[in-house]
């Protein structure tokens, strides 16, 4: 009897611990960030055939098409079910396989209800390819299209902001260890941090508020490479968290940091990000929000993104362009 009581106690304690850990985890994940890769998704445009071929060849484990990533897939509706929750998409050219698409919400289901089999459509969603190479797409958005040829160099934020990466200038940091692409109009507001004596870290500042004169308040995005070998003594190079805290203190000119990391994310494109958020007050009293994103690289260096904006006055945020730039960075 006593033994059973003890077992119950242990089980209760374990259950309570699990609940607390889960709640803490949820709270940890619930920190809202401006540069949220889960809510501001970048879709690569492809046609259904590219997806079907890639599923056969690599099962979405390598190459351009990867399971877990987001795509805007163009094809023809082959079948759809009566409740408008599911449809199959076939390629413009004949293939044996189809892509199974399911609506993730009512909005998508409503959009499907207005479509018919045989319609040419573009389906935006997250790709999955299972062990049997069955391809499925969870529909975020679906729209009619009249195109039949899709160039996979085009990326978009659903219906907003479509860019062809061939038109996006490429930049390199750390002798090519990091490369990324920027929207064409960022070139005019780009500043080299070291050359223009804006700081000691290799990288660029993009003065986004100047594009189209959106705001007189600074909205800037920085892409930098922190060379651990140059800035950190050999004995200290192992602890990345302490190094990142040192970077934050140096840039924000403070000894007191808030919770770091505010959020840890492994993105759908495989990058691992650590976030930090704080308020930056200038001596003049102007208040800015600073959001850092750290990405630790295999060579020991750290890719540092910094987004500075004014919460009250950043009316037309350039966030979509930033998300695209981060999505296309290669390390």
């Amino acid at each position: 009897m006593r033994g059973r009581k003890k077992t119950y106690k242990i089980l209760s304690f374990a259950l309570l611990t699990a609940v607390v850990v889960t709640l803490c985890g949820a709270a940890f994940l619930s920190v809202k960030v401006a540069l949220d890769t889960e809510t501001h998704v970048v879709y690569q445009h492809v046609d259904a055939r590219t997806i079907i071929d890639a599923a056969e060849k690599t099962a979405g484990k390598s190459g351009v098409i990867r399971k877990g990533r987001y795509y805007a897939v163009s094809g023809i509706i082959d079948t759809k079910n009566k409740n408008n929750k599911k449809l199959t998409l076939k390629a413009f050219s004949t293939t044996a396989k189809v892509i199974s698409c399911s609506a993730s919400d009512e909005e998508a289901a409503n959009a499907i209800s207005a479509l018919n089999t045989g319609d040419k459509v573009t389906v935006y969603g997250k790709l999955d390819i299972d062990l049997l190479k069955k391809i499925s797409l969870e529909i975020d958005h679906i729209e009619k299209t009249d195109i039949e040829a899709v160039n996979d160099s085009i990326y978009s934020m659903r219906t907003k902001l479509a860019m062809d990466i061939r038109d996006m200038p490429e930049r390199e940091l750390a002798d090519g260890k990091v490369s990324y692409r920027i929207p064409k109009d960022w070139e005019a507001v780009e500043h080299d941090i070291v050359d223009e004596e804006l700081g000691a870290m290799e990288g660029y500042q993009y003065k986004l508020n100047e594009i189209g004169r959106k705001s007189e308040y600074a909205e800037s995005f920085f892409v930098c490479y922190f060379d651990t070998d140059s800035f950190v003594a050999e004995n200290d190079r192992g602890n990345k968290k302490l190094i990142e805290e040192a970077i934050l203190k140096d840039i924000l000119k403070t000894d007191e940091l808030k919770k770091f990391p505010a959020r840890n994310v492994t993105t759908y494109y495989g990058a691992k990000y650590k976030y930090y958020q704080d308020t930056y007050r200038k001596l003049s009293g102007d208040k800015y929000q600073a959001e850092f994103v750290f990405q630790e690289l295999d060579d020991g260096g750290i890719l540092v993104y910094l987004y500075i904006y004014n919460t009250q006055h950043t009316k037309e945020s350039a966030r979509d362009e930033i998300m695209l730039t981060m999505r296309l960075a290669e390390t």
Partner: protein
Amino acid sequence: MLSGFDKRTVELQNNSNMPLIDLDKAIDRAKWGADGSNEADSVASLNEASESISANGTSGGAESGLMKEEKEFIIKVRGKTICLNGTDLRDSEELRKRLTAEYKKGDTAQVKDDYADADTYREVLEVLKKLAETEGLVYSGDYVER
């Protein structure tokens, strides 16, 4: 769990006299006209100032804009909120007080209509008109007759 007790820090080896990123400098330069890259805009704003409303008929706008110590007040009206150089104010009375206290001869003001409430916008214009009459403030903006 143990990390909370780890008070160790890493000191960066930075031989330059600059921080990794000088945010003050970067933000200052990100404001319009703060560096040479916005020369065209600055010139345009000077031209606007010279053509702007001055109730006492002075033409000090263009002249004043060339002097570095003179400043421009940026007044943005968003809805019913009045914002002066990035700081939200309670009402147009506070705007009047702040401008009266801070205005120096040659300073200019620019009003921006950011989906402004019409009454609030009129109140702001009234304040500026008064200061133009009494102090010679030169102001300009994207206002329209309402």
